[in-house]
């Protein structure tokens, strides 16, 4: 071989090998979210779905801990997916929706309005959990640019190794086991929690300096509304029946006005808790912040009925192919529920798993 | 040349300036001697040794110092 091509080949080989080594280190050092903080694994699981979904939920922990797609399917044959993540901000929800529409066209999109209270980027840790799971696309790039807090830089999202390299001193077996493959921690985006911790005292509301939502939050809510209208998707706003962070009536008024103006459906489940049969002494595992699995199932049954009536969703349980796929999801769901109940019995108290 | 020798003798009497060729390198002349020597040369030969001439080769032996002085003197004309 001519000398020039020999050196060129060697150079290419070396560069490739360097990237391989760096990629391996990145796979090792990036947090896996398989135990402990599982919320970080939610976003990336969406890409494993093989079938379409009639309903897409977007929002923060008020969606992924209070709605159970498996129940929606069992009760009403609704196919749904929750693209939720910890403290997901309004603009992150918008870009997640924008990305989802590249994969499928749902009939209904449900957005939880609590995140309207945040007008600027909040916390680097939550940004990472929401954004790192996304596949690279123009939506992800936009979402990263808009979500970055002060000392974050874009390169650390393109190469997560630049961000997580210092985890070398915190590596555990989990990091090695899940280097290339991840387990599924959620059921179509629902993160199951078992156990009960009743609400004894209601959190007090404090006086705020300014109750109106920020400009930035409104702008992205409008973008969500517009993109749904352009794609002929019915947008439904919701507020989960959780009592902390406190939901002020001034906020409620602004959302109701917005829903009327844009003729959107808006359901505040705080007000319809007894109708849904939700009792905060048994249906929450952390005294009212999030529902446990029983609470989530109750809320899903109640909300499912509304979705069918108001949005005209069809019952897909007759579709053989879909039933086959969802049957597996149901046994995984039941298996985890079973296992979590046993665990909570063993640990004796009703603390979180 | 002998004027120069007695300036050097004045600093260190015990050194044989005829033959020694490493006054600086062997640290026989330290910075104190250097300055006093330049001052004496200035007085006796009325020549100013510019700063950038203060380098080891020029001062390593009596001969090299003397040739430096001569060079500076005729450079003056």
């Amino acid at each position, binding site marked *: 071989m001519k000398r020039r091509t020999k050196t060129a080949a*060697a150079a290419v080989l*070396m560069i490739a*090998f*360097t990237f391989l*080594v*760096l990629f391996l*280190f990145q796979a090792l*050092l990036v*947090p896996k979210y398989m135990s*402990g*903080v599982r919320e970080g694994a939610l976003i990336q699981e969406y890409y494993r779905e093989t079938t379409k979904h009639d309903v897409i939920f977007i929002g923060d922990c008020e969606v992924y801990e209070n709605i159970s797609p498996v129940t929606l399917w069992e009760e009403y044959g609704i196919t749904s997916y929750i693209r939720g993540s910890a403290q997901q901000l309004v603009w992150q929800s918008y870009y997640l929706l924008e990305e989802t529409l590249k994969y499928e066209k749902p009939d209904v999109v449900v957005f939880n309005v609590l995140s309207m209270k945040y007008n600027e980027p909040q916390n*680097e*840790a939550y940004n990472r959990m929401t954004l790192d799971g996304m596949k690279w696309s123009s939506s992800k790039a936009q979402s990263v640019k808009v979500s970055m807090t002060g*000392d*974050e*830089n874009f*390169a*650390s999202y393109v190469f997560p*190794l*630049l*961000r*997580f*390299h*210092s*985890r*070398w*001193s*915190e590596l555990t077996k989990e990091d090695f086991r899940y280097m290339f493959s991840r387990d599924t921690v959620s059921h179509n985006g629902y993160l199951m929690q078992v156990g009960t911790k009743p609400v004894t005292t209601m959190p007090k509301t404090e006086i705020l300096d300014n109750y109106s939502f920020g400009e930035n939050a409104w702008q992205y809510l409008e973008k969500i509304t517009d993109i749904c209208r352009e794609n002929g998707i019915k947008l439904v706003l919701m507020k989960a029946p959780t009592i902390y962070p406190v939901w002020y009536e001034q906020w409620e008024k602004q959302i109701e006005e917005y829903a009327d103006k844009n003729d959107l459906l808006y359901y505040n489940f705080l007000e319809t808790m007894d109708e849904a049969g939700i009792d905060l002494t048994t249906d929450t595992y952390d005294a009212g912040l999030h529902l446990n699995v029983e609470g989530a199932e109750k809320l899903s049954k109640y909300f499912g009925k509304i979705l069918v009536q108001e949005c005209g969703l069809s019952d897909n349980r007759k579709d053989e192919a879909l039933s086959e796929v969802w049957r597996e999801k149901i046994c995984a769901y039941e298996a985890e529920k079973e296992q979590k109940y046993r665990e909570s019995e063993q640990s004796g108290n009703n603390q979180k798993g | 040349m002998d004027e120069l020798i007695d300036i050097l003798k004045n600093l260190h009497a015990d050194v044989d300036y005829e033959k020694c060729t490493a006054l600086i390198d062997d640290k026989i002349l*330290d*910075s*104190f*001697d*250097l*300055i*006093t020597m*330049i*001052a*004496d040369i*200035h*007085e006796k030969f009325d020549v*100013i*040794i*510019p*700063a*950038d001439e*203060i380098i080891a080769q020029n001062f390593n032996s009596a001969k090299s110092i003397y040739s430096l002085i001569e060079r500076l003197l005729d450079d*003056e*004309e």
Partner: protein
Amino acid sequence: MLFTSLEFILFILGVFVLYYIVPKRFQWKLLLIANVFFYACAGIGGMVFMGVTIVTSYAATVCMDRLQKKADNCIQSQKGIWTKEERKAYKKQVKKRKRNILLDCLFINIGILAILKYTNFAIANINGIAAAFTGNGVLAYTDFVLPLGISFYTFQTMGYVIDVYRGKAEAERNIFKMALFVSFFPQLIQGPISRFGELKETLYKEHNFVFKNVLFGVERILWGYFKKLVIADRILVAVNTIIGQPSEYYGFYVFLGMIFYAVELYADFTGGIDITIGIAQVLGINLTENFERPYFSKSIAEYWRRWHITMGAWFRDYIYYPMSASVPVMKLSTFTRKHFGEAVGRRLPVYLVMFTVWFATGIWHGASWNFIVWGLLNCTVILISQECRPLYEKFHAKFPKLKDKCGYKCFQIIRTILLMSVLRLLDCYRNVPMTFCMFSTMFTRFNIGSVLGGGLLTLGITVYDYAVVGLGVMLLFMVSMLQRKGSVRERLYEKSVVVQYFAVLFLLVAIIIFGAYGIGYDANQFIYNQF
């Protein structure tokens, strides 16, 4: 744009790629554009001052050069006609005019530096004195922003102007080429202070892509980043904790702080210079070495010939020698020798010159008393060791074998390191009385037990950090041992390509993984640390 910022790395890559694409004759012009861009990022304001320095120095050097050439031709043409005295008078007159031009240029540039850097310091002193009488300060402080690298490029340019005045360097007629010399961007941050005569050899030449050069340059850059990111920035947290809370960290902590700072400063400074020289080497430009394993020196004088070499050389060539060869000092020398006898006569001029040089070195480092005291202390130690030379000689005469024993050499090396670290405390606490008081706590308040018991872990870095720094320092030590016999990279270059590749890969991976950079590193609460 700091060395360790991503923008700087991208900037360098950009310059490197363009440098070898652009036709050879535009290479130095590209460098100039890169300098302007780099400097603009650090603040447009600073460019004005640099512009003034470039223009004044260019004008001064060209005038002096033209004046000298005219004088030489005139002397040639009048060879036969003029008498010795006439020619001597003419030469004196030319020298006088050249000297005036030089002094004007020096006055302007050193003036700019002095005003920008030292006004607040002067005001602080005036206020201090005024407060002693009237109870409150008199003058308001200015908020001058110090342009990037002003101390470095001002001294470098003044060195060039003085060289032209002495006829040691040819004045550069093309102002852009001269601007490139003044503003060569890698040097702006930490030096080295180059000499025009040496730098122009490679700065303006056309360079084609020499693989060996680029490889050596890249290796050196990586080695610089390794020192800076893996060692210096990591131990810096502990140093800052110790210095930040003197009331809490005293006694043995001060000693630890001293040692950590010695490691941090060495790794950071030599790392920065490695990056600078590496970048220049990649572009085919040779910069002078600024360090020569200073922690192996056996005496303070030797230390200052191996630490920040170019600064020491600058002060020696442009302040120490001119002063000691200047007429007033010579007059002083003869005067004191006549009136106060030989002993004082020999010492006084040298002491005067030395103190002036070290005062200038101290204040150049920073506009505050601790730097001045640091400079003067350095000078005192050197003079003392010079005065004690006869004692050393007597001592060694008694124990001739001792001198070249390995143990004695180690003793000397450790003594120098400790002494320099003590002096550097002034640099840490930046407050003279506090420094002395903290230094004294080392001997008065013993807390070695509590420090080693767990105190080490309250300094803001974990045990793993100490392990990494420890290993990094050992690697540094081993490489320095290898360097004693010649360049490590030359020997590496002889090895097979695979070995070279894995060496470079190891460095790159070590920097990316163990580097102290990014959000993950600064030890605030990241969510996962709590589980």
